[in-house]
């Protein structure tokens, strides 16, 4: 696992308060049966949830806010510290970075927010009903895109650096707490937990086709399955809104040549409509299928990174009770790929 540091739960509380003073500090807090990022201060620092999957809001929202003026001057902001990002959401940053940083046109607002943030990833120590990261080659513990990794084990918090920013942060923490090298036994326990959870996820999703086969199945599918699953779709766009890799947007014009970048979704009617009213996605089943094709067929031809990281949020959020994985399993069982 590499170098792991350990800090006692008591010391950690002091650390948290210091962090809350220096950063815009977000961490997962439970409320009414769901868990989401909250701005942390001394009042709620004790309520932070550790190593539980997964905040309701995908990580993308910190870097691509629902609405942002993209013609305004960049402002100096207090650096953001985002704690509790699960592996699926961290992996999803790959395609966002490809799209907003590494293509011919860099989005300076995204770049600025990425630069100005420190990410603390969490190991997941349990799974939710629709988690399926392992089906797409992602482990339920972060392996990329984090600055620090945090795992709570009884009365200790274990920390691992994943970047220069993370190493600097560990150094900074030493000013407020006693940080020791993690016990070998603790590391062994983490490794066991990781292996166990990976096994549970793999078993639970054993009938789910992998990422590439899903693409092939979708490509070969006929219209019937899309008509059938789209029959309860109400085009609310929640699946795309809550997806850690869906970032389609609308540019809205304001006076003084201001432009607002606002999160949009291909599931909304009129998304691809052009002047003269032609609309390739006019029919609901076609529009519904579009999102699957985009993720599993088209994005893989355009980007190196995958466009679904198996978080399962689209299934949990759907008011039409459409289960993406059920659809993919059905395609797989029909086609035996």
């Amino acid at each position: 696992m590499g170098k792991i540091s350990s800090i006692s739960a008591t010391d950690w509380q002091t650390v948290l308060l210091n962090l809350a003073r220096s950063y815009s500090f977000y961490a997962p807090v439970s409320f009414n049966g769901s868990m989401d990022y909250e701005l942390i201060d001394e009042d709620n620092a004790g309520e932070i949830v550790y190593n539980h999957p997964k905040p309701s809001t995908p990580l993308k929202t910190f870097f691509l806010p629902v609405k942002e003026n993209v013609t305004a001057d960049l402002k100096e902001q207090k650096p953001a510290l985002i704690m509790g990002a699960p592996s699926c959401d961290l992996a999803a940053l790959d395609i966002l970075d490809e799209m907003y940083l590494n293509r011919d046109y860099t989005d300076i607002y995204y770049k600025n927010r990425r630069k100005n943030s420190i990410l603390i990833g969490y190991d997941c120590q349990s799974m939710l009903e629709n988690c399926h990261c392992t089906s797409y080659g992602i482990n339920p513990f972060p392996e990329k895109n984090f600055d620090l990794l945090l795992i709570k084990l009884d009365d200790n918090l274990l920390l691992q650096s994943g970047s220069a920013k993370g190493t600097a942060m560990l150094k900074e923490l030493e000013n407020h707490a006693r940080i020791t090298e993690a016990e070998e036994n603790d590391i062994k326990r983490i490794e066991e937990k990781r292996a166990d959870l990976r096994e549970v996820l793999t078993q639970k999703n054993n009938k789910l086709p992998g990422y590439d086969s899903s693409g092939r199945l979708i490509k070969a599918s006929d219209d019937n399955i899309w008509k059938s699953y789209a029959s309860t779709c109400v085009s609310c766009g929640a699946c795309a809104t809550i997806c850690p890799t869906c970032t389609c947007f609308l540019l809205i014009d304001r006076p003084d040549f201001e432009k607002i970048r606002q999160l949009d979704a291909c599931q909304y009617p009129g998304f691809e409509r052009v002047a003269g009213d032609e609309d390739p996605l006019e029919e609901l089943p076609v529009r519904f299928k579009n999102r699957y094709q985009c993720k599993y067929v088209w994005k893989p031809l355009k980007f190196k990174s995958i466009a679904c990281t198996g978080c399962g949020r689209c299934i949990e959020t759907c008011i039409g009770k459409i289960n993406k994985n059920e659809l993919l399993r059905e395609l797989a069982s029909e086609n035996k790929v």
Partner: protein
Amino acid sequence: MKDDNIYKPLRAKLVEVIEESPTIKSFVLEPEREFSFATGQFVELTLNGIGEAPFTPSSSPLVKDKMEITIMKAGYVTEKIHKLNPGEIMGIRGPYGRGYPLEEFYGKEIMVLGGGCGFAPLRSLLYNLEAEKDRVKKVTFCYGSKNPAECIYKPYIDNLRKMDKFEVYRTVDEADESWAEEVGVATVLLDKVEVNIDDSVAVVCGPPIMMKFGVMKLLEMGYTDKQIYLSMEKNMSCGLGKCGHCMMGEYFVCMDGPVFRYDEIKDQPNIWK
């Protein structure tokens, strides 16, 4: 360049409005600094505070201080643009995407098929071909429109007819007594022209239905998929390969197009919508 703000438009002054037809006007813009584009590339034109839409300039890419954009009244933004008077300050972003691959046209006969406001990008191409006419064998321009009043660029057509190596054929769906040319949809013109197909490329731009039947007709005549070039109209909203509105199967039309060779797109879904 990398840290420029990709969303901020360049200011451009509207210096002239030309009425081309009852539904189509051309807008001559003077950008605040020199603006270069390759023929077939598009720009995002901002009407301050109202909206932004993609257009392919209709003027010559060789002219850098002025740019002409021809716009049909077809929606919310274009209706407001049609009400503008010279003096208005507009915004331009771009140029974006892949234009016409002129190097693939050199040494050949070029069949240009246009319909309605689809003449706009084609006029830019024709201007460019005029300047490069020593490098092409022949240019045959076939243009169809609804009726004589909707035929745009009349003075330009008159000049083009006089040009060595250029042939012009026109048709209208509904003729009146003033009309002495063909009657029928744009594709009927393809029966009139003489072309050595093996040594030719075809370029098509117009409303989706016309492009669809134009391509079918060209294939029937013996053109191959690889000899046909199309300028696709999709909802290019950001122009930057990000916003997703112009996705056509695996392509971002804004970056991979708007000009495609037919073989590149024929298997993508809903290309004629």
